[in-house]
């Protein structure tokens, strides 16, 4: 063996050595996926496909599933101290989600915070898992955070994002990059979330329509959220301008324009934190993502242009009945952040507050009447 290999290696001059090095180097993957402005979504299909014909109505549901960890005390979105969850805990959470999804039986499901390859959730591909444990046939996924490693808190590898699940085939699925936060330094911004909206054409036989799913910034302290809302609306405007029909939704991380409570800083405060210390030079005295007063009108343009599953007057008449979120392990829902929209008509808009234990958000569903 040595006699065989040695002459081959001896032919390897330094120039050849450098050339081989260059060829190999060109195939390297970046640590962080920065994404194009518009790029194709990642497509999924269930192991068993069951054909579904055309319908006159389509049940649509949106749900931020908190990467399948239910109300476990994860550190990143509450006051918990857990980072890397046990695989058994994640599977238990996913089973709870699948059971609820099968019970509601939507035709289109818009999911946010779906992990497909994250250390924190045992590297379970939750998109494929949910497809194989519900009655959906097809999926389109757009990552909002894809990095080989996040160098903080022991998070490690992350790939999490938005997912559209459908009983009909999804076509021309595209990921639209939303603006990055404008209030972060360059290093933090490089490793931080890259929010997106995902649009796909649902190929229901004879009656194709579009599904759009998004998850907007939660913690930006500047006008990034306004830019996200504008970009999301621009996608919907584009579909409408071409004469298309859409169902759209997601976790907009924004409360309705007629919400009565705008300040959640003290509700969301963790042990050791302190907010509203006016008069003391401590910079922002509000908790990031918990103070909505400056942005209370930002969803008005969506409400004026398109039809929500839960109209503002319905929400205003019974606010607590339409809350969709409460942080951490607090089971008392206290704000509405999740929405469904269309450019035609909804019926039976429902806020599923019975699902409070399955995630820190609860699903909103409605039946879309096909024009």
């Amino acid at each position, binding site marked *: 063996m*040595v006699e065989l290999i040695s002459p081959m290696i001896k032919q390897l001059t330094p120039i050849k050595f450098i050339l081989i090095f260059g060829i190999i180097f060109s195939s390297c993957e970046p640590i962080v996926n920065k994404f194009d402005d518009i790029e194709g979504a990642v497509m999924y299909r269930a192991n068993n496909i069951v054909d579904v014909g055309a319908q006159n109505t389509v049940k649509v549901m949106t749900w931020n599933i908190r990467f399948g960890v239910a109300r476990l005390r994860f550190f990143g979105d509450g006051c918990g101290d857990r980072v890397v969850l046990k695989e058994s805990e994640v599977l238990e959470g996913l089973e709870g989600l699948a059971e609820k999804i099968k019970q509601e039986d939507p035709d289109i499901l818009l999911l946010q915070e779906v992990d497909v*390859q994250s250390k924190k959730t045992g590297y379970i591909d939750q998109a494929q898992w949910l497809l194989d444990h519900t009655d959906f046939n097809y999926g389109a996924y757009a990552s909002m955070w894809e990095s080989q490693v996040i160098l903080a808190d*022991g998070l490690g590898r992350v790939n999490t994002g938005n997912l559209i699940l459908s009983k009909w085939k999804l076509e021309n699925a595209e990921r639209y990059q939303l603006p990055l936060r404008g209030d972060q330094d360059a290093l933090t911004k490089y490793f931080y979330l890259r929010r997106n909206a995902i649009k796909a054409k649902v190929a229901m036989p004879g009656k194709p329509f579009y599904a759009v799913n998004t998850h907007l910034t939660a913690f930006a302290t500047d006008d990034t959220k306004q830019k996200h809302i504008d970009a999301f609306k621009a996608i919907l405007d584009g579909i409408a301008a071409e004469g298309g029909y859409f169902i759209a939704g997601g976790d907009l991380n924004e409360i309705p324009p007629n919400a009565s409570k705008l300040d959640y800083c003290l509700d969301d405060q963790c042990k050791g934190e302190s907010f509203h210390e006016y008069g003391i030079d401590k910079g922002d005295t509000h908790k990031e993502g918990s103070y909505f007063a400056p942005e209370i009108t930002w969803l008005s343009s969506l409400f004026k242009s398109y039809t929500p599953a839960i109209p503002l007057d319905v929400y205003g008449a019974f606010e607590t009945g339409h809350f969709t979120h409460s942080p951490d392990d607090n089971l008392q829902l206290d704000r509405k952040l999740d929405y469904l929209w269309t450019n035609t008509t909804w019926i039976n808009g429902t806020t599923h507050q019975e699902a409070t234990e399955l995630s820190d958000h609860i699903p909103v569903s409605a039946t879309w009447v096909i024009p």
Partner: protein
Amino acid sequence: MKKIIQTILFISLGLAGPQWEDESAGLLSPGRHEIGLFSPFRMGLHNGSEISVNKFLLLPSVAYKTNLAQFHKWKMAYRIQVAYPTMAMRWIQSPLGMKLGEPDMFALISPEFTIPQMISVYGELMGTTGAPSDGRLSINGGLGIGLNGKELAQRATVDLPIIYPRLSVYYNGILIKIGGEYFRQVKERWSYVIDYDMFLMPGGRGRFAFEQKGLLVWSKSKKFRLLFGYKLIAGEYPFGSQAHLLPALDLQFGW
């Protein structure tokens, strides 16, 4: 800044090398000392052996290497290394002393995990044939055993190239490593090294790693040399398989 530099040094461990003689069965001549930016301190002893010590104090290790009887054209040696990783693994749970969510910058292992007292013992055989001017070939193979005071959570792995296979012995209890190196001097000051290592990690979610390294070596004198090139790593991790290509650099000093 000091802590950031320490972190980079830790992450860089193993990126460079090989040492002047370390991958081969050759020993440092008695009384000679060598140290590199990314390689351990080594010293030739007068009894026909050498010792090396990791200069990164949070990850102390000591290795002893000595000759065996020649086997046909092969010069033979064996090396025993003992390492204590507990301090380093605890340190990378919070390198900058921050708490969870502050954020705990550069933490590679979540602070929720308890890192127990651990040591590893690694023994390997090495054989070398040929001379640098005509090409010197070395092969080696060894077995590592990890001894833990308490079980280390499998979820606490660092799923990154270089680090994952080297820490795997503490999670799985055993590591098998087989490798080879070809060194050739092409001009008076220039030589190159092609090195290959295979890690087998039975019991782990990532079961193997292959590392291939190519380095150009510029030797100013017996007191200094510069190595630069690449390291190609293809391995299996808890999330699946992936390949990485990393730059490799070392500055080595001898006296």
